[in-house]
Structure formats: C-alpha cells, structure tokens
C-alpha cells in the first residue's frame, strides 16, 4: 500500500514524458517535412511541366518557315503530343508576328507585355500556365521576331504535386510510426533494469541486507551503488545495535550481579565496620560499571558517528589539547602526569573532532591506568601521515596481543577490575572511520606508544 505522502511525490510517468516528447518532435518534424514535401512537389511539378511547355513551344518555333515573305507555321504534331503528356489539360496557343498580329492559333487579343518566359493567366475559366518562346528572323523578306505562346491548364501539375506530397507524407508517416515503435521499445528496455531492481528487492526476506546484485547499465549503476551504500549503512547500524545489546547483556550482567550480592551482603551485615568495607567495594564496582557503560555507549556512538557525521578539517593539536582537558580528573594525579608534545604548525586532517578526542581520551586513560609516567600526548604530521596518540614510560602489553588489541574485549580476562578492555576497540573503530589505522610501537625498552595514523590533508604537506 502506498503512503499518500509518497504517492504525492510521484511525478509524471517517464513513459508519458518520453511519449509526449517523441510525439512533439514527430509532429514538428512531420509538419516541417509536409511543408517541405508540398513545396518540393509543387516546384517539381511546375518545373517538369514548364519544360514540356517550353519543349512544345520551341518545336513550333523551330518549324516556322518563310514563303513569299509570309510566315508559315507548320505545327509539328509531336509538339502537341508532348503537351498531351498532361492527358487531361486543355491547351491554348497562338503564333504572333512582330506587330502583335495573330498568325495562327487562338485569337489572343495581344501578346503579353514584358520579357517573362512564363506567365499565368486564365483560359476559358480555368487557370493556365503560359510560356512564350520568341524566334528572331533575319531574312531578306522578314526582319524581326515571331512569338510562340502556349498555355496549358494546370490539372496535371496539381495532380503531380499532390502525388509527390502524398508519397512523401506516406513515407514520413511510416518513418514516424517506426520511430515511435523503436522509441517505445527503447524506453521499455531502458526501464527494464529498474523493474529488475524492484523485483530483486521485493523478493528479499525481511532479514536479507546483502547488496543488490542486478545486471544494470552504466546509467543506473550509480543508483544501485547508492542503494547498496544505504543498505550497508542500515546493516552497520543494525550490527552496532546488536553488538551494543550483546555486549551490554554479556558485560553488564556479571558486575550488576556482583553489586547485588555485595548489597545483599551489606543488608545482612550487622558489623558497622564491615558494612563500610562492603560499601567501599560497592562504590568501586559501581565506578567500574559506570566506566564500562560509558565505554560501551561511546563505542556504539563512535561507530554510529562514523556513518552519520560528515568529516571536516580538524587540527589534531586542538584535539589533543581537548582530550587532555577532558580527561577524567578523578584519576590520581591525572593532569599533572600528562604532557603534551605538539608541533609548531597545525596538523590538519579530515576527521570528526568528537570521535578523535574520545579515542585520545581512551588512550590517555589506558596509559594512566596501565603504564608509567611520563604519559605524553603527541601529535605529528609528516610524510603524508598525521599521528595522534599517547606514549608512556611503561612496557605496555605483550607483543603477542598487539594483533588483536583492536578487537572488543581483547583481554582474555574479560572485564578486569578496573577496565572493560573496550578502550583500544574504540581507538581502532575511530581509526577505521577516518581511513587510517591504529598503530602500536615500542620505540625503546622504557617507552610504549599507541597512536592513530591518519591521512594528512594535502595543504599541510608542503
């Protein structure tokens, strides 16, 4: 069922728009071609029949003779046979002497003025096309010109023009229908990948979040990529949620059960001093539980932000400073034990300030808890890489664990008394969200460093 709000967003159908476009183009083209065909047909007919007229008149002019000083017109029968190629058209003709007198033929009152070869006039109530062919004579007995004028009605011309136009229009119509059919096929085939995608998605089970894998043309592949990115994001969100719930249920159950046991113990205890001891333990356990909860949520938040928050140019020095500022002040001698090693120039990279600071804080906390002084937060930018991390004077954890340090609850012991072991997992997640990686180094026997190595923004490489 379509939501009315969604329905209202559907704009005019692609098919309709394409059909309208094609019809418009065909109509405009059709009108243009029809006009051109009409003009062409008319001109072609005019030219063809004008030639017949000139041919006939020239034959008559060529058959003019002189006898006893008089023009004799011996009309060749072929001249009129030429004219009868327009089988239904009537003919009028006249041969005129120099002074405009009729020599033979129809009694035209006077030959027309002007020099035009062709002219149009009427003959017995019908439009006729006329030609005048003049022949000059320089005989001893006759010096001057004789005009041969032939007119013919225009039925055959009109018929030929109409026929040419009609044939052209039939061809145009056939081409138009063919083009429309091809266009319909093209639209059908162009839209078919969309149907395949639709079928692929519709046929999925509700849990299937694998990428759409349908053979699509280039033009639609970006749509499929976008769709797949969207599906992947949903999948990651679901994964984060599942992880959070699984971790929470697994990691929180034990400390809460311990807390409850201590509380029950305290409730049954009469001895004041022992009660105070138990309360002290409850306090410590609940602080650890609070940290674990923070880390779980923080981890989930980081992964969520990696998908949702746009990265922006960040100066890692300010990130480091922020992290130090926000470090849990309740840690013993925390602020005094932390040093900052920052370069003069800004170290810029694309990042999420909050996630980076969170990662940094986790590293600081780890060093404060497990390492030895001095704890130094450092930032470096060189060789296209930006680094932000913490080093301390301890030996760190064994090298064998470095490989798996980034995964959740890497410490086999699970939740220790003071930490949940999620710190490095968060650092690792932040590194990956920034297209970088978490690095662990032991530069000397008394130094241990964990840092994020991220791509340096190019402006700062110079």
């Amino acid at each position, binding site marked *: 069922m379509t939501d009315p709000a969604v329905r209202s967003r559907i704009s005019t159908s692609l098919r309709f728009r394409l059909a309208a476009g094609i019809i418009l183009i065909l109509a405009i083209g059709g009108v243009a071609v029809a006009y051109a065909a009409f003009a062409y047909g008319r001109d072609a007919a005019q030219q063809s029949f004008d030639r017949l007229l000139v041919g006939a008149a020239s034959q008559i002019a060529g058959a003019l003779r002189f006898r006893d000083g008089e023009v004799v017109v011996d009309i060749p029968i072929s001249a009129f046979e030429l004219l009868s190629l327009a089988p*239904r058209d009537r003919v009028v003709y006249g041969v005129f002497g120099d002074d405009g007198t009729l020599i033979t033929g129809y*009694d035209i009152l006077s030959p027309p003025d002007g020099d035009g070869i062709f002219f149009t006039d009427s003959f*017995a109530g019908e439009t006729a096309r006329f030609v005048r062919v003049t022949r000059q004579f320089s005989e001893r007995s006759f010096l001057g010109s004789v005009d041969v004028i032939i007119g013919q009605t225009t039925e055959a011309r009109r018929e030929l023009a109409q026929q040419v136009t009609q044939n052209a229009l039939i061809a145009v119509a056939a081409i138009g229908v063919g083009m429309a059919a091809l266009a319909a096929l093209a639209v059908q085939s162009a839209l078919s990948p969309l149907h395949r995608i639709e079928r692929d998605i519709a046929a999925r089970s509700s849990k299937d979040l694998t990428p759409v894998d349908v053979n699509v043309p280039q033009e639609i592949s970006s749509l499929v990529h976008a769709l797949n990115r969207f599906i992947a994001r949903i999948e990651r969100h679901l994964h984060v949620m599942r992880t959070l719930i699984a971790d929470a249920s697994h990691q929180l159950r034990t400390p809460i059960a311990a807390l409850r046991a201590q509380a029950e113990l305290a409730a049954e205890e009469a001895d004041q001093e022992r009660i105070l001891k138990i309360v002290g333990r409850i306090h410590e356990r609940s602080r650890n539980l609070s940290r674990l909860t923070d880390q779980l949520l923080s981890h989930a938040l980081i992964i969520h932000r990696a998908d949702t928050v746009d990265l922006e140019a960040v100066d890692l020095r300010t990130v480091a400073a922020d992290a130090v500022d926000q470090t849990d002040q309740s840690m013993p001698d925390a602020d005094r034990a932390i040093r900052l090693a920052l370069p003069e120039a800004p170290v810029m990279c694309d990042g999420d300030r909050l996630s980076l600071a969170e990662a940094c804080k986790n590293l600081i906390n780890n060093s404060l808890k497990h390492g030895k002084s001095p704890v130094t937060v450092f930032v470096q930018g060189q060789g296209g890489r930006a680094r932000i991390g913490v080093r301390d004077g301890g030996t760190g954890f064994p090298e064998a664990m470095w490989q798996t340090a980034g995964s959740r609850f890497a410490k086999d012991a699970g939740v220790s008394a003071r930490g949940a072991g999620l710190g490095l997992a968060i650092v690792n997640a932040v590194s990956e969200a920034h297209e970088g990686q978490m690095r662990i180094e032991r530069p000397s026997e008394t130094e241990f460093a964990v840092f994020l190595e991220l791509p340096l923004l190019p402006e700062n490489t110079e």
Partner: protein
Amino acid sequence: MRRFSGVLPVLALLGGAAVGEPAPEAAKSYGPVQAEVRLTVRGTTDIARFEPVLEKFLARAEGARIEYEQWGSNDLYQATDADCRSGYASADLVISSSIDQQVKLANDGCAASYRSDETTGLAAVSNWRDEVFGITWEPAVIVYNRNMIGDALAPRSRFDLIDLLRPDDSAFRGRIATYDIEVSGLGYLFAFADSQQATTFGRLIEAFGRSGAVATCCSAAIIDGVASGDYLIAYNVLGSYALARADENPDIVVVAPHDYTLVLARAAMIPRHAATPGLAGEFIDFLLSEPGRSALRSANLIVDTSENVHAAMRLPENPEVSLRPIPLSVALLVGLDQHKRREFISRWRAAFPKE
C-alpha cells in the same frame, strides 16, 4: 485582361456548303409528346441508322422524349460553339464523327464533365477529360465491287493499292474514289491521320494524283459509285457505311487494310449549358453499356473487328497491330490549325486538281 476565348476564324469557312445560320438536315422526335423529360440529341449519324439505338434507350428511360436532329459536322460544330459562348445550350448531347471538332469544343471549355462507372471503364484513347467519349468503333476501309475486281487482284493494303495504280495503263486510272477533304470533315480527319501514320501517305497521294483519282463528297455517293461500277475502288470510306451497304449488296467487299486500319470512335459530348445533363449522361451510359453496344453493333456503328462476323469484311491478319483507333487528345487540335490545314490541303490539292 487578355482572354483566350476565340475560335479559329478559318473554321467558319470549313465546308463551303454552310451558308448563313447553321441548321439541322433533318429531325425526328421519339417518345410521348407530353413527356416531362426531354433530351435533345444532335448527331452527324443518319436518323434512320440511329433510330433503333434511340428507341432501345427510350424503352428503358420511360416517359422521356428524345428530339434527334441530324446535322452536318461543320454546322453542328458551329452551332455548338455558338451555344457555348451564348451560355445557352439548345442540345443536351452532341455526337459527331468529327472528333477533332468535339475535342476542340471540350478544349475551349464548352463541355460538361461526366463520370460514371461506364465512362471510367473506357480506354484512355476513348475518354478525354471525362468530357468527350468515344462511343463507336468504325474502321476506315477500302471498298471494292467483287463483280468488277477479282479477289486475287483486290488490294489488301495500301502497298497493294499503290502497286495497282503504278502502271501507266492501269485499269484503275480515274476509277478510284476517296473523300474530298475540303468538303468532308471526316475525309480530312482520315487523311490527316494517314499523314501521321506512315510514309506511305506521300506515295499514295502521288499515286492518286498520277492515276487521276476522284475526290468527291460523302460516303453514300462514293459507295453508290462502287456499287454501280463507276468506281472500282473507294479508299478511306467509313466502314460502318460500307458494311451497311454490303448488307444490301453482296457484291460490295470491305477491306480493313492490314498495313494499318484507322478506327474512328464517334465522340459524344454534353454541352456545358445542357438543360438535362443527367439524362444525357444516362444516354451515354446506355451507349457504353452492353445493350447499347449491341444496338450500335446492329446499326453497324460498332464494327466487330475481332472475328469474322461480317461476311463482306476482310480483316487484317493481325488486328491488334493493324487497328489503330484515333485517340481523343489535344493532338487532334493540330489538324484544325489554320496554317496546318491550309498547308495540308494545298498539298492534297496538288494531287487532286479541281476541275
């Protein structure tokens, strides 16, 4: 404004017999006197020959009255042309053997257009502009008297005729007759068509001239001369008249020359201002329909040239090639041109000096 509306002035001089107002030679009415529908037909065909055709049509068109007027071809042309320009037509249908004049009338805008299934079925040579329709089939033939000439000697083509006339002591000297083309429009039409058909025409004229052939008027007079033995051979006679005479006189033999035989189709035309063009059209349809054609065949106006129907008729060996209908087209106007006609007649006259 110039207007091409004139006629050839010379045409008025065609056929010296026409003096004063053109008038019919004879007239006869058919059908009830009180009829509401009247059809006036003017034709060059003799009343007696056309009567059966008219009566057969009248039997179908009940209640109509037909006035048939028999005219000379030139008079008929002039009367129709005058009607055309006066805007009043005294005839509803004009049927003339002078098909060139009929074409000219249509060319000058004097004919009404008529289309029907029958007219569209006509061959192109028998229908010009849906205005002039060829309704008959009458070959131009050579006629001889079998009592005077043996079949072995009888000419079957123009070549035979020329050969017969060649010897200085030929028995045919002075005994060959043909139309006087100055008097007979039909004679002129046939002679002019001959001049376009083949080079034989020049030799034929020359042979006619040397042998003292007779140019005289009218089909009837020429065939009478052959029947009586005054003429041995008549050339270019209208086959329909010759066959009609052969029906009465078995000595008359009609030859359709096998080099070529001109065929005339009498032309029917409805004048533009005709009072009852509808009925005239019906009459044309009747003439073109099978009953009409059968009536025309009985009257010898359609001569069956496909097989030996007429005992007196000698058909060419290959009728499809030899029979040449004179097409209804503007080309017929050439023969009517003043100069062309003058030149042609003077050439003819050189062979047939007037006594």
